[in-house]
């Protein structure tokens, strides 16, 4: 039983929210804890069928990106985590996207429990907003200022140097 299941499970099929199917290598899929969990569960049951994992929260264009990331990182999985080449690739990877895509990718990484991608996205977002003014951040992310003037002043007041 064990031998037959291992061969049939070298690949899984992932379905996006807009009903596109993606055939994914098991090693690549394991980069996502969500997919890995599904695979592990099925393996325990000893099924011989091809596993189909529906992801109701991720559209196909975003899923393509997540899988691209997972593929690259699966290649480096046995390597040192601090690999310079991989870091460079990560940076270039995220640089291509607009903020809307970045938002969806971050949410997808969270949903699919791909921790390294989630952290990467969050760090990238943090780096890209760190030198912006509050107004600029609101404008870029289309966020409404919902503070009362008093509340805003209170937070602003934290920006003081205290001496002793």
């Amino acid at each position, binding site marked *: 039983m064990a031998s037959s299941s291992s061969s049939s499970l070298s690949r899984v099929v992932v379905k996006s*929210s807009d009903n596109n199917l993606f055939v994914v290598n098991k090693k690549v899929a394991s980069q996502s804890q969500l997919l890995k969990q599904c695979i592990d569960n099925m393996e325990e049951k000893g099924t011989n069928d091809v596993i189909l994992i529906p992801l*109701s*929260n*991720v*559209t196909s264009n*975003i899923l393509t990106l997540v899988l691209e990331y997972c593929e690259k990182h699966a290649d480096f999985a046995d390597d040192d985590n601090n690999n310079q080449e991989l870091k460079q690739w990560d940076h270039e990877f995220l640089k291509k996207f607009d*903020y*809307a895509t970045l*938002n*969806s990718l*971050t*949410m*997808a990484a*969270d*949903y699919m429990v791909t921790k390294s991608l*989630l*952290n990467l996205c*969050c*760090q990238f*977002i*943090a*780096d890209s*907003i*760190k030198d*912006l*003014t*509050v107004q600029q*951040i*609101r404008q870029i*992310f*289309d*966020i*409404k*200022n*919902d*503070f009362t003037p008093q*509340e*805003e002043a209170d*937070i*602003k*007041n*934290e*920006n*003081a*140097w*205290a*001496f*002793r």
Partner: protein
Amino acid sequence: MTHFSRHRWSKLPRKIIYIISKSLKTRQQIIQFKRVCKRWNKHSVLLPLNTLSLTLPLTIPISSSCGNTLPFIRSSTHSLHLEVSSIYLITPLDASLRPWMVMVREPNPGKLQLRHPLTAKRVTKLLPTLDMSKFRAFELARGYNFKKSDSVLKVILLSSSTPSSSLELLVLFRQGVLGKLTVRMSDHHHGWKILKPHRKYPFWFRYLDDITVFKEKYCCLDRRGKLYELNIESMKMVNLLVSEPIYGREAPMIVQRRKRLVVDPTSKELHSLVREPKNGNVRFKLYKFNECCKKWDVVEHLGKDRVLFGVDHCFFAKAKYFPGCKGNCIVFAANCFTQYRGRNTPDRRLFGDDDDVEVGVYRIGKGDNFRLLSSVYGEFSKSIWPPPIWLSPKSQEDLDEENFSTIKCHSDDHVEPMLIDSSDEGFTDKDKDEEIKLNSSSSKPYKVSDSNGITNSDKTRQRSSFNEQTYNSEEHVSAPPLPIEYKVHNVGTSKMDCQKTGVCSDYNKAMRAYALESVAKLVITLQNTTGKSLSVDQADDIRATMSDLQRVGLKVDWLVPAVEK
């Protein structure tokens, strides 16, 4: 089910908001992040107390059981206290006020010290807080230092980003020895790895003068002026970058001075700065690292747009930051480029031996041309010292207000009582002028006051909104300073004219509360201590409070026997 394709940043899951805010590097960035919207404010990380760095200050306990503490650190020290020591240029958004360059240290989280940017003389008279939204603070140079450790010349933080698992530091000791300190954050276990010169190694050196990061490499300069590349993992020199020394063997080591490495942030080039080993004269030589030919090139002219500051961590700055600065010069403090051995008497002669505020200026490539900065570039000198008027407790807007009595105030490290000005007149125009002059042009306006605590420059006026001021709370019970308006409204014996002080009733209540609080604290202190257990600080506080209360006319005679006891 929700769809992720829509662009909804304000509705980000709280977990993602948290991770993004945790990825920010400075307090300022976190504040900006929190100001975006309520949701971001609520779910982001708590605002740290620390102002300059999210990880520092940090106390590293040195446990004696470790067995590998360094001989350079005094045996009496049980911990190393690492703090940030940065040079900032603070520019008021109000363009009529002058910018100021200042050294900012954070010995305790959230409590900053301001110091002379070059001599590190402490600025003691300042507002309790400075609202940084009214200023632009630009960090010119960031350094780190161990508190109360004279034996350390320079500290470089290797893993500065997040206080995750461990902290790594390079520490250059005064003896010219370099060590790497690794501290595990979980249990503060630490270990030293010392860079050991050894004749068997391919690159031999004896002592190091400086270390800096240049193009992501760690570059070390030895006493002869040779430049090496250090591998921080193995703590070994791996490359000889400049083999031709600045000084050959013939130069007498005894009169040589410690050289510095400095990277120009604009041109991204590495320089070495050498003060020539001549007694009595001041002559600097600046070299630029020629990477292709692996040698030092002499820099004849730095350029009008740049100025070099000579401190322990030398740094370049743009001349345009400083009004009246013509560039092409080195600004430095006395005894900064110390001789390896012996004292620096020539510096004392050049700078004068008073209160640590004078800095010298040397124009590059001009032979012996030492001058005191204040004597040649008055305007430029004012961006360094004295501290600007907008920082003193008597702020600009107070000058415009009327109907306030004059109060003399002496605030130092410890809270001290305010004293009544004997003149019952408000500020005259003449007074104002004197004040401004004292604050902006005199070379030493902040002299420590004489025994009765009154000097002219101590003169200040209380702000109408007294509650804005926060006072340093001591560990032991101490009396808050008594504002003088209390006296006016409570004590008929006052010589002051009530009409001169226009105070609102809220304010007055606050004064009463302060006075009563002082008395209460005094009584508590007296009850809790016997004559012997009274510490010197406490005794001083009591004395100060008593005299203060007496001044405002409260009868404290009934307390005297208790105090004397």
